[in-house]
């Protein structure tokens, strides 16, 4: 049962920014996460600001420079099916296709997929945890089989998005509208680690709206994939995932991006693995070495040590699939 709130559906972006600047306002795109959070009292809203009238936030198109623009209100299903994306940005298409279930992909938006709240069962449940203003992260001593092995500090959530690591692997730019106008940031810097602020997951300030994502033109010899390990084959978040994007010429990797999901509080880029791959040929050995590099510095909690093996396994698998 949803708690009471006011609902507004602005017709312009400027109006939406203004409404969202008010305290207690929440943006509503697909609603697949927001409504669940409200129903479960994970967060409160005085006003729900529907973005559904903002048609300029919809659609996927190619840009003048040969890249792709994805409106934040494009559905996850649209991203998964868009020919320009399946052809040139396969890791993103894979990742979108791996999200949740058909119903949720049809309803959920790419912007919402990036801005969704963590799935940590203490955060979602009836526990006054650090991220909700309490003074303890229950995962540290508790049921932490699904929690972070990398980048955990104060709070051990994992970032739930499949599409975020894929977008970062393609150096996507996020455009943000806000009270002070518009700004653009690399998506990699869009997410806030708990070491910076453990009460928020993105850099969005009150009134700010993620409006679009810009993918640079594909590099020569670009190939990519997204591998997602999960308990169920559908309708499940990642135990661990990896987005890999390689530019390959003459069977050698010119540049590489390796970004993990499901193992750290933010999409987790692994420069060590990228360095191993750069200039190398993809074979069993480099794949294994990159897998090992991906979990360097992993600090598992009591019940999530298996994720170390899991990440190694899927990084290896993803890279061998691109060889």
């Amino acid at each position, binding site marked *: 049962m949803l708690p009471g709130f006011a609902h507004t559906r602005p017709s312009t972006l400027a109006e939406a920014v203004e409404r969202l600047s008010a305290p207690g306002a929440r943006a509503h795109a697909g609603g697949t996460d927001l409504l669940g959070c409200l129903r*479960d009292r994970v967060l409160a809203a005085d006003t729900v600001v529907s973005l559904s009238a903002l048609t300029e936030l919809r659609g996927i198109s190619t840009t003048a420079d040969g890249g792709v623009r994805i409106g934040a209100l494009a559905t996850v299903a649209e991203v998964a099916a868009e020919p320009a994306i399946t052809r040139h940005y396969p890791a993103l298409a894979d990742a979108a296709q791996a999200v949740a279930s058909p119903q949720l992909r049809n309803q959920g938006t790419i912007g919402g997929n990036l801005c969704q709240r963590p799935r940590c069962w*203490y955060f*979602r*449940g009836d526990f006054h945890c650090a991220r909700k203003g309490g003074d303890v992260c229950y995962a540290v001593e508790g*049921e932490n089989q699904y929690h972070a092995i990398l980048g955990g500090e104060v709070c051990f959530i994992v970032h739930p998005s499949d599409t975020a690591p894929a977008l970062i692997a393609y150096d996507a730019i996020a455009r943000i509208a806000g009270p002070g106008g518009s700004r653009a940031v690399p998506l990699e810097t869009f997410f806030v680690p708990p070491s910076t602020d453990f009460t928020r997951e993105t850099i969005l300030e009150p009134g700010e709206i993620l409006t679009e994502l810009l993918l640079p033109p594909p590099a020569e010899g670009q190939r990519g994939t997204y591998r997602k*390990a999960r*308990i169920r084959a559908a*309708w499940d978040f990642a*135990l661990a995932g990896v987005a890999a994007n390689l530019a390959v010429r003459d069977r050698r990797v010119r540049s590489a991006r390796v970004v993990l999901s499901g193992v750290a509080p933010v999409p987790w880029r692994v420069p060590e693995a990228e360095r191993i791959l750069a200039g190398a040929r993809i074979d069993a050995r480099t794949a294994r070495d990159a897998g090992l590099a991906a979990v360097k510095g992993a600090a598992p909690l009591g019940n999530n040590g298996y994720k170390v093996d899991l990440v190694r396994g*899927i990084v290896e698998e993803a890279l061998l699939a691109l060889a």
Partner: protein
Amino acid sequence: MRHPGVFFAPDAGGGAPPPWGETTVVGARRPRIDAYERVSGTAVYTLDMQLPGMLHGAVVRCPHAHARVLRVDTARASAMPGVRAVITSDTPGADLPFYQTEKGPLSRLFDSHCRHEGEEVAAVAADTLQQAVDAARAVTVEYEALPFVVDEERALDPAAPKVHDSGNVIGEPRVYSRGDVASGFAVADAVVEMSFRTAAQLHTPMEVHVSVAQWDGNRLTVWDSTQGVYDLRASLAEAFSLPLASVRAIGTYMGGGFGSKLELGKYTLAAAVLARRTARPVKVALTREETFLVAGNRPSNVITVKAGAKKDGTLTALDARLLGPAGAYPSGSTSAYLIGDLYRCANVRTEATNVFINAGKARPFRAPGFPPCAWALEQVIDALARRLGHDPVEFRLKNLTAVSQLRDGQPYTSTGLEACLREGAREFGWQQARAAERHTGHIRRGVGVAAGIWGYGGDPRATAIVTLYADGSVNLNTGASDIGTGTKTVMAQVVAEELTVPLERIQIEHADTATTKPAPSSGGSQTVLVNAPAVRGAALDVRRQVLDIAAAQLKRPVEELSLHDGAVVAKDGTRMTFAELKELGRKRLVVGLSHRHPHPEGKVALPFAAQYAEVEVDTRTGRVSVVRFVAAQDSGRVMNRFTFDNQVYGGVFQGIGFALSEERVLDRQTGKMVNATWHDYKIPTMLDVPVDPVSLPIDPHDIECNWVGAKGLGEPAHIPTAAAVANAIHDAIGVRVLDTPASPARILRLLADRQRKG
């Protein structure tokens, strides 16, 4: 486990009917007679009910695993718009005893001592559900949180917090013994001992638990999503000190139960008390999250099994210890039945301990205790067979028995277990699958088998009435609940078989204590085998009367008449429809009534199963996929091949969930359930079960078990599933998965452990 009682009732018309030979309607693949209503949305489930003036209820629940209620403040909630009543333990008429034992009740409807998360503290009725939920949240409760215990092994520690003052161990351990296990192990050539833990599984029926209560003076009517209206009526009559006749329990369309809707819940009492306070009908529906906390579970089990056998494969001894938590109130938590009766073994000892923990009370769940016990026993049998170099199927065949060792060696009316094992192996291609190269890179393939028996033969007391009207249409009246399994359809098929009328001409009245006659609850896999004989008897009673009427009208001996296509046909070809029977027109109806006959004396009628699984294990991700499955089921006669297969698929899929992904997780720091949501409590999706499972009925043509030859199906289709998957995983990766679920995390940990040990 209750043993079948004996209830002698004369069947109307006298004498047992001859067993069916070839049947035309019974056994056919027929869609459910109410399929259209169910899929088109016109079927009204209890959850859908709207009565004039009906209020909606919501329950205030304890958020702690263990707490004392110090103060309940209802002032703010009572003043909220639309609120008609707020009830607490202080409300007149609300201080009702609950969880009755011989020593008195262990709780009250609203008890100041809350022994598990979600326990009821107060309830609200309001004009709308939104108002009720808002008001329930506005009730302020002050708690004193108490130390808790949510782990069954820790509960045994005398220093552990006590759920009840009497301590955490419920009664004495249940010990069963025959022969002498020590001498049995002494003559064994191989002995295997392993310890297992199965996680708590939740029922998760599609329809949540819901009641609608209404009073008319001192008469109480309750519509309920229940597996048995008669048991519910008895519980309500006791709770409100009313005569049975003053309580009416009604079931409508129902969205499943799996055992979780066999008993009265506090939410139903709350609905009745709220209805009485407000003089309005009140509906109380649990949310999905509430059902996870308070509507039952299959509790976790810790089971150690030791088994010994001779070189030739003969079992010499079985010794088992079982521990299970009932939850916060008494309930069965384990069953050692399989160890005592699945295989022939002279020396058996089992010891079962039942404890309280601070978690929701367990309820019967699809073969209570059997799937966990099968998970343990069937893995130990598998390991023993391998140790001795026997094929696991041959090893099992070597140890079959035609008598029930737990029931004084009484013979079974039929046992198709050998046929299940042999036919199942043939259908599965067991020999070829074992011989084939099964590993490609990091994907390992394996095959496994497990067997099962279900230990309950049903309560034989049931009554059915079949009424034939002057136009040839038929009314079937049975108290049985159709909880979603197709009971109505199967019963209509029985009537159609005997009266030769089309299914469309049969109207069913069921599951209503005011208009139908007593039937046992739809649980224990007994619904068909208990009710179908009574329905057949009642239909035959009608048939006899119709033939007598026709004989008089046609002036022919009754022996020369039979029924065909809804008409009386004489030997010479004379045909007369039911509508043409003058006496039927005059009387307007013919009523047939039958009680079910008692169980056969000195014999035991039970169903058997053998199931085969093939899995792929991805050693990189730890994910197990069940790629092939064959379920060979001796449930006697197949009453409807379509609903039969549905039961088998459902049992297997629920077993795969038990094996691979389902697990109630209780937080060690707070005792609270952390995964009480659809996403985090992982039942399998259609992508997590085999694409094309095989349901293989094995019918031993049992003419002794009852008048229709059917044995139970719902539970035996589920008992060996998880064990078969576990044995297949071992075959694939060479590691025993001792604990459920065999999730990626567990598989990866086991593989890492093995690698560390070299």
